[in-house]
């Protein structure tokens, strides 16, 4: 018998995404309709516009996804329940319910952060195991102790800006376009990470929380005094400060909570310097590392499908009465 097939819908922010996953690794389709160009002209995501676009795109993207499979092969339907923008979430969540009703299949609502947290395990033969997960995206920076499926303990999180947000804000200070992460990374490649000494926020705080707003402020104060070719060095020094704090706290958290595996997921986990440094530090500490595939890092439905597959396997199903929840808690 073939492995169960899960269809997932993700509309937590400005991306309309649908994916179909069979088992833990056979991604039958993963479609993302991005609205980034629509929102870029406003300098951020406009919830009302995002919601209108989700509804307009939902029909076509669902139909397109369903050309890849036989409908009756779908065993479970899932959608992101939160966190995110309510007006965006409710479109995908309701579409998922409608689909589940029509197909007469179970429905499961997935926490977007659980999608990220489990994504480093995507494609593996066995289910996710005890580990320390660093989730770093444009909206979140948190250390989550994965004890078991559905059992997550928040170990630490940012007290101000998310790491991705820090990249984006520093990029804006430098007059670079959104999203800033990839551009800063590229500029940093040819820069000297020791040229400017930036603060390592909360490195010695004794807990596992983060703070990146001081770093951003340090960049802002330094900028007016810089002349000539400083961009590459500045980006490299800034990136080094972010990466060092993320890596050291992640390793320390893993040791403290006796997790033998560290994972990293979310948009910022695309960053090669973060990946390389985490791998090196983990190997020195005798820990295994799992990095989310870059394709699964920014908002997509494949990671939602993967989390739904795990829940479906264990009979942890949702119900049709639950509503989309912009503050849906994972822990």
């Amino acid at each position, binding site marked *: 018998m073939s492995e169960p097939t899960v269809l997932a819908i993700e509309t937590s922010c400005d991306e309309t995404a649908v994916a179909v996953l069979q088992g833990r690794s056979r991604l039958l389709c993963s479609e993302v309709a991005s609205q980034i160009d629509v929102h870029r002209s406003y300098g951020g995501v406009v919830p009302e516009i995002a*919601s*209108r676009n989700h*509804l*307009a795109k*939902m*029909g076509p993207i*669902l*139909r397109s996804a*369903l050309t890849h499979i036989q*409908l009756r092969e779908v065993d479970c339907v899932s959608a992101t329940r939160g966190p995110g923008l*309510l*007006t965006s979430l*409710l*479109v*995908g*969540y*309701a*579409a*998922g*319910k*409608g*689909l*589940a*009703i*029509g*197909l007469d299949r179970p429905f499961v609502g997935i926490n977007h952060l659980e999608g990220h947290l489990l994504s480093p395990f995507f494609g593996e033969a066995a289910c996710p195991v005890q580990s320390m997960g660093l989730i770093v995206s444009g909206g979140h920076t948190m250390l989550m102790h994965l004890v078991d499926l559905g059992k997550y303990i928040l170990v630490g999180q940012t007290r101000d800006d998310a790491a991705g947000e820090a990249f984006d804000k520093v990029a804006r200070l430098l007059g670079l376009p959104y999203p800033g992460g990839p551009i800063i990374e590229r500029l940093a490649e040819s820069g000297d990470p020791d040229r400017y000494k930036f603060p390592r926020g909360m490195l010695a705080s004794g807990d596992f929380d983060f703070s990146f707003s001081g770093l951003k402020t340090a960049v802002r104060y330094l900028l007016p005094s810089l002349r000539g070719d400083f961009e590459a060095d500045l980006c490299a020094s800034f990136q080094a400060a972010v990466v060092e704090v993320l890596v050291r706290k992640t390793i320390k958290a893993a040791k403290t909570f006796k997790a033998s595996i560290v994972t990293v997921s979310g948009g910022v986990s695309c960053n090669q310097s973060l990946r390389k440094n985490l791998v090196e530090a983990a190997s020195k500490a005798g820990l295994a590392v799992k990095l989310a595939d870059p394709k699964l890092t920014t908002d997509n439905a494949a990671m939602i499908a993967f989390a739904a597959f795990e829940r479906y396997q264990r009979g942890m199903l949702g*119900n*049709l*009465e*639950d*509503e989309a929840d912009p503050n849906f808690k994972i822990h």
Partner: protein
Amino acid sequence: MKTVCIENSTASGSLAFADGNQIIDVFEFSRSGALAVSLQNMLKRQGSPDQIVVGIGPGSYSGLRVAAATALGLSAALNLKVHGCPSVLGYEAPEYSVVGDARRGTVFVATVRNYKLVSMPILIPYDEFQQQLSNFELIYAIGTIPGLDGFPISVPKAQNLVFRTESFTDSYEPLYLKEAHVTGAKIP
């Protein structure tokens, strides 16, 4: 032709299942989370429909979007067509006007003659609407409107909407109202 109709433009939603020109099942609900379960139960009782009709407002954007998206999911699963129909046609009477709070000091007004909209619903400021009250005979309010009382509160129902076939459209997107300033003469 079996039709399931979803009307969710106000705080009280409804579902209707019609076979030809006969209503064979209705259900009303008042929590938004109840829509999907109610729909599932109705389809368990009545089997699959041949088409879906969804109320497109004017009304609560969230309610309308949930209804439209649910209809889309259902239509993708069962390969059915989704028709939109202005929710304000969901009353039994053939001639009336519907008013609803549209926030920021405005109301929407829709006038129906012979079961059809006279024109697209319009947005007008409270005070303008109040000045023109004498032009209206029967007015239903779809909910309370701050500062305006005395209208019977009455919400559209799926069991009426399902028969307004002449007003079905291919678009299931909510009616997004535009500001419009109208003179008294334009409102019958």
